[in-house]
């Protein structure tokens, strides 16, 4: 509990808040430059204002969903670090998985404040920063060449269909499998963890003893049911906005169920 107080101390708010403020300034600089360039290019100012208003309103609901993610992680990592991670670069599903993997590797078992040590926390924090930085690295070293090549291809296409473009048409199958492979990869990732909850119940205290902790599997089941509910609301009510809350909402509902199950079990 003492560590959690340290993780919620003003020093951490200052470190994390400082980085978030810096990123906010970057966003502001890019927005002002784009707005000025848009005006110089003759893009209708009303259109640009409409884009700003629409993007701001569009972002409110998902942002509340992200805030729920901060709440979900705050019990095990304190508030400032999840606040930083989910304000800059991260996403809830990624942060939780990486934090769990780091907890295991550092030897504290599953992600929990009860087992957390300062060394475990800083290792988790480093891994969370490291694992997802590839997009930033690619865009730094290859972004300019890539965007230039793309705009070059566009010109080629408008000038006439090039042989290269025709060659590309032969590759849709590989692209199609790329999407399938990504889904399969996530199925594999999720299955490893869900299977470990089954394994815990059956063999945690010796093979086929059936005396292991069943709470993780129960929580996962409640979360899956809640997610199913969100998906149905989305489909039947044509409510796409539900997507913004489905993961964080399912997590919070199942975490509330964990408290109730813990009390009555």
């Amino acid at each position, binding site marked *: 509990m003492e560590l959690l107080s340290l993780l919620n101390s003003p020093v951490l708010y200052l470190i994390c808040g400082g980085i978030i403020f810096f990123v906010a300034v970057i966003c502001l600089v890019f927005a002002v430059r784009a707005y000025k360039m848009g005006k110089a290019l003759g893009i209708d100012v009303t259109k640009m204002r409409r*884009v700003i208003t629409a993007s701001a309103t569009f972002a409110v609901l998902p942002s509340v969903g992200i805030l729920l993610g901060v709440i979900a992680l705050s019990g095990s990592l304190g508030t400032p670090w999840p606040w930083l991670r989910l304000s800059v670069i991260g996403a809830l599903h990624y942060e939780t*998985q990486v934090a769990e993997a780091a907890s295991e590797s550092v030897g504290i078992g599953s992600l929990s404040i009860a087992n957390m040590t300062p060394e475990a926390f800083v290792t988790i924090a480093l891994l969370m920063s490291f694992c997802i930085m590839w997009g930033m690295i690619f865009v730094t070293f290859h*972004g300019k060449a890539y965007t230039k090549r793309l705009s070059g291809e566009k010109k080629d296409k408008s000038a006439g269909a090039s042989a290269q473009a025709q060659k590309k048409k032969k590759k849709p199958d590989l692209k199609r499998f790329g999407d399938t492979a990504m889904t399969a990869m996530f199925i594999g990732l999720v299955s490893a963890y869900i299977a470990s909850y089954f394994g815990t119940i059956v063999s945690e205290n010796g093979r086929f003893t059936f005396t292991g902790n069943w709470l*993780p599997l129960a929580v996962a089941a409640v979360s899956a049911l809640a997610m199913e509910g969100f998906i149905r609301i989305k489909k039947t009510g044509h409510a796409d906005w539900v997507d913004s809350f489905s993961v964080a909402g399912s997590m919070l509902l199942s975490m509330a169920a964990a408290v109730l199950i813990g009390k009555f079990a």
Partner: protein
Amino acid sequence: MENRENQGRNESTENGALSVNSEAYEKYLNITHRLGRLMTVLVLLLLLSAPYLIGLFLHAVPNLPAAAKAFLGVGLVYLISCVAEYLIYVPMLGAGGSYLAFITGNLINMKIPCAINARDIVGVKSGTPENEIISTLSIATSSLVTIAVLAVGVMLMIPLQPVLQSPSLQPAFDNVVPALFGAMACKYYRQDMKISLVVLAAMTLLFIFIPSLIGSTSMMVIPSGALAIVLAYRSFRKGQKGEGK
């Protein structure tokens, strides 16, 4: 109808004003790349140094061998995922939008839908200067809104800290990970139930018969993911052969 009118206006913008300002636009793009690279590197350095800075405060240093081990498990999955995101989304977002989107994250659940929504409103095409401006404006605005909402939310959470730290809520926070994987299982399993059940059954048997692996679940993501991809490839090839006939 309105879209067609919008498109007409866009074309006239591109052919008219843009040709006059093409030099200025080139200069804008070059500065965007320079600024984008510099800011991205700075943010990267800040993010990587923050754990060490926090470590100074907590009197601890990151355990690098443990971090490397965890990276081999789950980090590789995200390396591949990041490559795919980069290749797919950069063409949609343009230069400025890409730098901002990769710095601020939450791509799939917010930045991409937001940028597409903005593009639809104005009616622009990928690769055009208008798309560059609109995407940048859209992603910058949505990022600023997220930062503001989270900052206000976190400030409101400060008085709630004693409640959030109460022991009666600990079972909730101890089960964040199962809560996440339950929701994700529902989301991904429905996309291919057959593969999901086979992989889940295989991994469950493995954990039951070799319980010592439970403590290394993150490493077991590698065989689990490999099995899922092999099964998906077989099913994909089968489907292709069926289409061929």
